[in-house]
């Protein structure tokens, strides 16, 4: 019984070689079009998960540095993360510059990490597992190098926010920033 159906289905009317080629071309084109269409259709769904325009608009933050006295430290928010701004006194700058870079776990000179030596600007997120190191407020433990100390697992940062002791693998990240005037910066 099924043979009858099969034979009626597979024998076309005078298809021959020409018909086969035409059908293959059509099938190929149709499949290709379908695939292209499906991929183009999927893209908006995926891209909608990317940051939206209002989120992207908040990717930069302007900071007025004039109220920050020498020796004072300021914490501001940038892209939802804390940023440490340290108006370094000369003692801190000297301590940072005198360090032998080859002894550092993450070797960087102080000059590589600042644009103006009296302003150190770093992201206040410990590079170990993400806690916020202490050292910004009066009375905080700044650790043995006078920089920052992370209470979670004991990472110690120096006055250039470089890792000196403890489990963190890298120095505190320096975010992209530029001076828009002598007393103002834009981060991001």
């Amino acid at each position, binding site marked *: 019984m*099924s043979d*009858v*159906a099969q034979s009626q289905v597979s024998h076309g009317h005078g298809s021959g070689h020409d018909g086969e080629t035409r059908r293959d071309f059509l099938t190929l084109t149709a499949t290709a079009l*379908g695939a292209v269409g499906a991929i183009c259709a999927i893209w908006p*769904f995926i*891209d909608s998960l990317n940051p939206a325009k209002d989120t992207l608009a908040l990717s930069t933050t302007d900071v007025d540095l004039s109220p920050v006295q020498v020796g004072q430290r300021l914490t501001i928010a940038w892209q939802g993360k804390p940023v440490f701004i340290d108006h370094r006194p000369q003692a801190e700058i000297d301590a940072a510059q005198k360090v032998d870079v080859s002894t550092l776990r993450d070797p960087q000179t102080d000059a590589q990490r600042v644009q103006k030596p009296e302003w150190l600007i770093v992201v206040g997120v410990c590079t170990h597992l993400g806690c916020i190191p202490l050292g910004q407020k009066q009375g905080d433990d700044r650790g043995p190098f006078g920089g920052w100390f992370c209470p979670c697992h004991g990472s110690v940062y120096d006055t250039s926010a470089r890792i000196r002791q403890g489990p963190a693998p890298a120095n505190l990240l320096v975010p992209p920033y530029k001076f828009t005037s002598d007393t103002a910066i834009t981060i991001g």
Partner: protein
Amino acid sequence: MPVTGTGRVSRIIRWIDYRLPFVATLEHELHEYPTPRNLNYWWNFGSLAGIVLVIMIVSGIVLAMHYTPESTMAFDSVERIMRDVNYGWLLRYIHMNGASMFFVIVYIHIFRGLYYGSYKYPRELLWMLGVVILLLMMATAFMGYVLPWGQMSYWGATVITNLFSAIPVFGQKIVTLLWGGFTVGNPTLNRFFSLHYLLPFVIVAVVGLHLVALHQHGSNNPLGIDHKGPQDSIPFHPYYTIKDLFGLTVFLLIFAVFVFFYPNALGDPQNYIPANPLQTPPDIVPEWYFLPFYAILRSMTFNVLGIPSKLIGVTLMFSSLLLLFVLPWLDTSRVRSATFRPIYKKIFWLLVVDVLTLGYVGAHPPAGPIVIVGQIATFYYFFHFLILIPLVGKIERPRPLPTSIGAPVLAPSAAGDE
């Protein structure tokens, strides 16, 4: 055939199939499952409905990543989707117009069933599962429309949830339970969001049952006669896969015209005004796909035997849907397809006109001649199903049926094959 080959892919497939017969089932349903050879384009709408369901679920899930279901933030979150989310406007318009498309497709699918007798033996359960899907769709759409929290969202929700107060004794308590408060408000919005997310997956499950029931006896066909042998059938793949794909492309064209060029044509401008509980819009109108039922609801303008008109109206509205469940038993004809039923064919078109009239009535304020037109149309709707259909089945003389599906199309030498 992958299952019978000797290559590595075939061996992997056989390994899986032995434990979970996935590929074998697919092959059976696509290649061996007999589909009538004579299906016309009215049979495209089932698979089309399934595809639109998937589109609605995918677009809905992505929209839900950006939507906030809280009464003071919902409207703004939708505007954020429209303006700031990458392609948010596209997703929203797809979801909004997809709902309308879903109902157009399902209504055509239903009327196809009515015309060709697809609800008759042995497909009664298949039909009833379909009515369940329709009810779930209506609940989903109603709750979905509330979510943007516009004026129509809020007031439409108020009017429709207030209907339940018509229930004697417990009515008001039920309404308070639905609302979660003393009016439609934030608790209502939150639970509607939860249920709106849930119900489409219930629909998927019922669609699964719908397909299982379908595959028991296979599709009906325009002639309404059972398939008698293999000459009446063809494999679903490639014949109906390509036909469905073509139909899908045509549908997508129409869908794209709405989404890209007339995205708000089927909506109400008032829903772009944030919900204001202290100001009722001058006219409260549901979305177009609810209009016939809205007309039936409003048709009852007088009390009967002490029963409040509101209660009768609500009962009529629900009955208009529930009587679809018993349609297989209301129809007494032994012939399925209207092709061979001269009287039924005419009253079928009368029903179509009636439903369109009800839709028109529902769209306009109930004043003047609209009221009496709505009442006549409501009366005819019930008259059609409860009186005409049983009667016509009995008194009609159907035209002679062909001997088999293959007979009218095959060459004379092959006709009458058993």
